[in-house]
């Protein structure tokens, strides 16, 4: 797994397009949200800004880069090449996604750390960590599933749009309007429960027990996405 992860890291940093779209742009967007935190916190809350930051990284660094990288490796038959070795399928997949997971975690730690310093500390850091990890797990699983229907890196620009825009839209909806109305729908949509969890962790507005229940829909999406990925993921281009 680790030799694959090392080679994947090298490839990510040598590919300017991935570097800009997957790694630099999310940080740039995060800086914009932090700079305008007063505007966004007036619309929602500080927790809403925190949720936007975490999901921006989760969507654009983790999800989009995972889909693009896996599609590119399949299109170039690199996945088939890796399967010509003794490495198992789980080890190959883990090696391929490990660098982008690592980069995403570093990014989100840095961005949320900066936001905590300039905007105010979260009420429950441990819950925030759990919330971010659950959201990341969901986006990674959705990335594996989306990679199954993505033929090329170019195609990824189209196939990632529904989930990317959907998750950001749901996060904005939940963060701005709260979950007093349509709670079940908002929590069931991908990113809804994760957003509420981050908001609760940052603002400290809800009892811990209630917040932990919000993990269920997010982890439910992880299970659904993994089930979809196991059906849809392909190791070689469709002939």
């Amino acid at each position: 797994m680790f030799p694959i992860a090392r080679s994947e890291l090298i490839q990510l940093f040598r590919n300017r397009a991935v570097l800009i779209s997957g790694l630099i742009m999310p940080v740039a967007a995060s800086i914009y949200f932090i700079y305008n935190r007063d505007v966004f916190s007036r619309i929602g809350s500080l927790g809403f800004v925190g949720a936007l930051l975490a999901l921006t990284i989760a969507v654009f660094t983790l999800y989009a880069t995972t889909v693009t990288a896996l599609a590119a490796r399949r299109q170039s038959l690199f996945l088939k090449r890796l399967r010509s070795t003794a490495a198992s399928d789980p080890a190959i997949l883990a090696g391929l996604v490990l660098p982008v997971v690592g980069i995403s975690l570093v990014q989100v730690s840095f961005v949320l750390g900066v936001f905590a310093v300039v905007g105010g500390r979260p009420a429950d850091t441990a819950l925030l960590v759990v919330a971010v990890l659950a959201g990341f797990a969901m986006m990674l699983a959705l990335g594996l599933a989306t990679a199954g229907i993505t033929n090329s890196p170019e195609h990824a620009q189209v196939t990632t749009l529904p989930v990317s825009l959907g998750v950001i839209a749901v996060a904005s909806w939940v963060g701005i309007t709260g979950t007093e109305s349509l709670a079940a729908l908002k929590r069931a949509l991908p990113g809804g429960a994760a957003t509420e969890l981050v908001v609760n962790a940052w603002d400290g507005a809800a009892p811990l027990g209630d917040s932990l229940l919000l993990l269920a829909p997010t982890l439910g999406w992880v299970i659904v996405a993994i089930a979809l990925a196991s059906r849809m993921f392909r190791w070689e281009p469709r002939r």
Partner: protein
Amino acid sequence: MEQLTEKVGAVPDRRLLAGGASPGPVIEVEALNVTYGDFPAVKDLSFQVQPGELYALLGTNGAGKTSALEVIEGHRPASSGRVRVFGQSPTDRAATRPRMGIMLQESGFSADLTVAESLRLIGRLSGRSDRVDRVLGVVDLTRKADTRVAQLSGGERRRLDFATALYGRPELIILDEPTTGLDIQSRDALWEAVDQLREQGSTIVLTTHYLEEAQQYADRVGLMHQGTLRSQGTVSELTRALPAAIEFSLPQGAPAPPIPFATRDGGAVLIETFELQRDLKHLLDWAEVNMLELSGLSAAPTRLDDVFRDIGTTPVPDTP
């Protein structure tokens, strides 16, 4: 690809180390079927490859050899039948890959990695151990070690492909159209390296469109057509079934040759024979006695190409 002897080096016979004094077949294929939807790509294919053998699996386009090879490589499940590599399922990569090098038909390298990085990665993951610089030397890519794969020519990529297959001197090497895209010098060097691996006991499975390579290097050949194995054996066994050809032209008014013959368009005489040496001597003696010049005389043994063409034009028998 200079100094191959030195670079390939001598290694102990791994067959003896791994499997004892009397190893079974390296590859066993029994009643293999591969279907895509309703289309049968491989039909009831059976063959074995013995240790140390170079087995060439040849076929017309769409014959099913790539599908069969992909099952043997563990890249594709069999629809039915049984395939074993070293007595194991080829999908058991942890068990088979450390003993098996695969040269894929298509490159499959990352454009953003260098030659040395690519070889090091695939080599390490294969479970075999070797020195990257040694292997790059064998395929004459030492000077390209730090070049990104994106900047390699097609022939250089094929050589890198070959390097991943021979990394760690595996007991079994699968070469899927290894010389396609290589210049003549690189081809010769590749076969020289293969020869040396065979001297060390490696078993080779080959597919190629260059039939002269199979004719020259293969111990046994399997000929596939429309998904079935139509013929199998040594080159001499396969070519023995078809007649050799003697061809020449006679001057106007010459007597008929003493051996049954056919006349081609343009008047050339064609004699097909299973006794080339005897009939050629007979013909030359006859020409000398009659003071005839056999212009444009050629006498050629049956080649694999002829067997291949014969199979390609013969309908596939119905399977019960």
